[in-house]
């Protein structure tokens, strides 16, 4: 059994409007020390067999869009 954790975020050059909204909300809640928020999606994927290399396939084929996203597979 293999357990993967894949995190998909926006590239730095792409505006993350969810991040901006959360930043604004946290500041309104009084956390003025928050200076930046970026968001992403995380997928915990369990494989019955096989290896971590498939994770890259998952990114390419389904989870991420290479034009706007970065996809990180955790060790």
């Amino acid at each position: 059994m293999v357990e993967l954790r894949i995190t998909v975020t926006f590239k730095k050059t792409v505006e993350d409007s969810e991040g901006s909204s959360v930043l604004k909300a946290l500041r309104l809640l009084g956390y003025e020390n928050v200076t930046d928020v970026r968001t992403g999606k995380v997928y915990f994927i369990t494989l019955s067999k096989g290896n971590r290399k498939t994770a890259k396939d998952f990114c390419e084929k389904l989870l991420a869009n290479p034009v706007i996203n970065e996809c990180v597979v955790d060790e």
Partner: protein
Amino acid sequence: MEEGIPMNRQIKVAVLTMEGTNNEVEAYLSFKHSGTSPEIVHLKKLENKSKRLEDYDILFFPGGFSGGDYVRAGAIMAARLRSTLLKDLEKLVEIGKPVMGSCNGFQVLVELGLIPNVGGEYGIEAALAPNISNRFEARTVYLKINKGNCLFLRDFSDGEVVKLPIAHSEGRFVTRDSDILKGIISNGMNVISYSDEMGRLQGYPWNPNGSEQNIAGLCNKEGNVLGIMPHPERVFYYVTESDWTRTEKREGMGSRFFSSAVSFVREKF
């Protein structure tokens, strides 16, 4: 307080808004066409105290995507309200004023703990999770009314089946634990349920989101706070019901929620 509002005094309604709430227009018009004097109130105005909640007779949380529905539907609006206005809101609820939220408004009420509030302490007892279908569902659904003491349902009859539009992707009502669910049922708080055209509770697609016990709308024990996933304010007139060309001319299904609240306020406040 018992003598009611004289007819020559306008009933004041606050329709609460912030960036991303977007049903405020139809909510405003529904109240206006019900003979009240509604006002669209930006959350900011309450936060900076240029407007006060206590000046209103009815409070309405419209649908939409407050704060973009980022994080979780209703979460950002609820967090802002919680940090500045929770006490005022609780007071309003406790003196029995009508408070209603539809769609995103329902999500906000749940996130604030104003509903279901089985425990009576405004704890967070439930959530509206993503639809089981994992997609946005925009269509008309059948709903069975079990009116109980819910003031917004005065003008309906018990057991009636009505049709209202839905448009949401996070509408699956789930409770914290089985005690909460039991409390809801035993108190008759589950006043509106997804059903088939005969009023029978059925699974998908009748239940569009996978809500526990087919719960589509929920009133608090006292009957003055209603949260509902469908949109009464979008079918104030029958010509906006999706099948109106097959039916006879009559009042819109949604208008009765508003007339109920108005008659209640006229009598009680």
